[in-house]
């Protein structure tokens, strides 16, 4: 095993000075360096997530969304900034606050909203719900609802990419797995087992702690040791810990995270990254947020990642107020349309109850079929598994 290496916390740098990585153009899969077009694209993605969540909360209040629902508002810079630093085929996996990651990874908001509404057009055919966003084509491996459960799975994704590359040679390049978790998941045993396995087996996986300050209603300090330096937990597992303090700034998140991704891709060794952020809403829809002060919320609201980037762009002359307004209006229209389509979409047929339990047919089970999201347009009306029914 490698000796433990501790890296000093990465300090906030002026993002405009951060040079674009040389590897950006490799494979044509990585998004371009931080030119104005890229920054505007990130702004648009963050706006899209925010608007999606605003409409999700409305829909929840109107009882169009059921179950547990966890809103991503406030943390947009994390999903958008980190995913922008990845190749398209790098696997990602996350916890239950997963709408933002799905949208940032490029899932069509309609399939995401339809899933929330429990419709057959949802990404999981209405069987998963808010906490289970999956997209095979976009290499999104869920949406996992038990706190920390995704962390051992992430080691498996990374193991598989390495096995494909080194053992069976079906892949010719290193893929980096990114596993998102909240600060609450840090205290689950499975996370520590996953970290240890990643270290022992040298797996190309980056664990990203989205430190929003609270595990439901329990502040980080009340729940874990090293509360002011969670990234240092990496030391126990012989891996490098990184801190991205300015987690409300998408450019900083991207640039600092990109360096970690590049290193992991090169070394095929795991890393732990703590990103400081804040959720503007409660843990879930039923949370009155009595465990935190109005002053604290105000302080973080002033760092809104969308305001942050739009102000910077406007100040730099890269975006006009009118363009920003137009962008916002367009997104509102787009999400309004998504809500309308999702509310009009059909619920899963009752037959679907017994589909996807097993891959084959036996007893009452009726094999498996892919969701409409992954079928070509001409396939959507036909049942792929019809002959085996």
């Amino acid at each position, binding site marked *: 095993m490698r000796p433990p290496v501790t890296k000093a916390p990465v300090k906030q740098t002026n993002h405009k000075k951060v040079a674009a990585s040389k590897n950006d153009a490799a494979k044509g899969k990585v998004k371009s360096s931080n030119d104005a077009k890229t920054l505007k694209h990130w702004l648009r993605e963050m706006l899209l997530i925010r608007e999606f969540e605003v409409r999700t909360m409305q829909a929840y209040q109107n009882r169009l969304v059921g179950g547990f629902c966890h809103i991503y508002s406030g943390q947009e810079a994390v999903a958008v900034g980190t995913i922008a630093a990845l190749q398209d085929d790098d696997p990602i996996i996350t916890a239950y606050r997963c709408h933002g990651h799905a949208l940032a990874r490029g899932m069509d908001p309609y399939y995401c909203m339809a899933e929330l509404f429990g419709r057959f057009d*949802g990404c999981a055919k209405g069987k*998963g719900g808010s906490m289970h966003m999956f997209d095979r084509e976009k290499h999104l*491996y869920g949406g996992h609802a038990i706190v920390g459960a995704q962390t051992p799975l992430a080691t*498996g*994704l990374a193991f598989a990419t390495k096995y494909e590359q080194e053992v069976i040679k079906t892949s010719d390049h290193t893929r980096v797995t990114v596993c998102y978790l909240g600060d609450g998941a840090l205290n689950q045993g*499975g996370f520590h087992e*996953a970290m240890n396995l990643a270290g022992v087996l040298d797996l190309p996986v980056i664990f990203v702690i989205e430190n929003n300050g609270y595990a439901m209603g329990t502040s980080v300090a009340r729940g874990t040791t090293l509360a002011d330096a969670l990234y240092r937990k990496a030391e126990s597992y012989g891996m490098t810990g990184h801190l991205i303090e300015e987690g409300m700034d998408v450019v900083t998140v991207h640039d600092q995270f990109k360096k970690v991704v590049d290193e992991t891709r090169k070394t095929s060794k795991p890393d732990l990254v703590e990103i400081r952020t804040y959720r503007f809403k409660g843990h879930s829809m039923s949370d009155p947020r009595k465990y935190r002060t109005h002053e604290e919320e105000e302080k973080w609201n002033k760092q809104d990642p969308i305001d942050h980037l739009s102000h910077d762009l406007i100040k730099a002359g890269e975006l006009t107020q009118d363009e920003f307004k137009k962008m916002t209006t367009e997104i509102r229209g787009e999400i309004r349309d998504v809500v309308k389509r999702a509310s009009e979409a059909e619920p899963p047929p009752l037959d679907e109850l017994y589909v996807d339990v097993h891959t084959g047919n036996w007893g009452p089970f009726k094999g498996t079929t892919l*969701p409409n999201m992954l079928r070509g347009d001409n396939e959507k009306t036909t049942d792929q598994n019809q002959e085996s029914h």
Partner: protein
Amino acid sequence: MAREIEFRDALREAMTEEMHRDERVFLMGEEVAQYNGAYKVSRGMLEEFGAERIIDTPISETGFSGLGIGAAMMGLRPIIEFMSWSFSLVSADQVLNNAPKMLYMSGGQFGVPIVFRGNDGAGGQLGSTHSWCVESMFANVPGLKMIIPAFPDDAKGLLKSAIRDDDPVFCLESERLLSLKGEVPEEEYLTPIGEARVRRTGNDCTIVAFGRPVHFALEAATELAKSGIECDVIDGRSIRPLDMDTIATSVRKTNACVVVDQSWPFASIASEISAQVQECCFDDLDNHVHRVNNDDVPAPYATNLEQAMLPHAGKVIEAVRSATYNL
């Protein structure tokens, strides 16, 4: 051509043949590689396949069972060995939430073609925590398959089928059977999952058993035959899917049924089969279905208490006599 080999060698042959056939298959678990397996099931596999495919793990059931599930979601075909199924309880969330439900909760996007295998049931004086029979508790969960071989030939054929299966398969082995010798064909074969095997035929009573208790059932049947009671002995082989057709056909013939199950009686495999038999053979039964289970107590250490708790041939004979009192 068949030759006699041990149960553990049959399991190993299944794994090595499938690993030669499909390079996506790998074996992972505690002590499977350098130590040659805690029970020598994987003896020699490290030399044969190398450390990239025969992988020792730390004692970390949640971690490595989750790792296997993640790898299976990406299309690999892991065999995850639990030194004992008792230890799988540590990783219950991975084993019972993520493996069997992933296909469903992802709307058909991610299947989990994984095999979890290891020792199930009482070893010998291992006490309460190490003597788990997980079948009743785990078989409750939809989305998984469960096999429980009693003889070396089925151990090999069922495990090969399990490795090729696209669903998660739980393979329950018995430490007490690993040295059992039996005839195993040399040529390749597969034993289909979900098909019971009639090990002995008779018209007076049906005995259904799974795993090690099949041997108690056969011993009991031999003894009962001496007093003129002839039994059908059904080796269930799979618990999910359950071959109710074979069981029902037999019960319709014998009009009596005894189920031998090494898990606790409350909400057990035996309870399930009793319920299903009365649903499909209500008018055929001359008596209620009799169950022979572990006693409803934690596994004790002392030899005499442990023996008193476990199913054995004597208990099966008593149950069959009661079920056929009218003969």
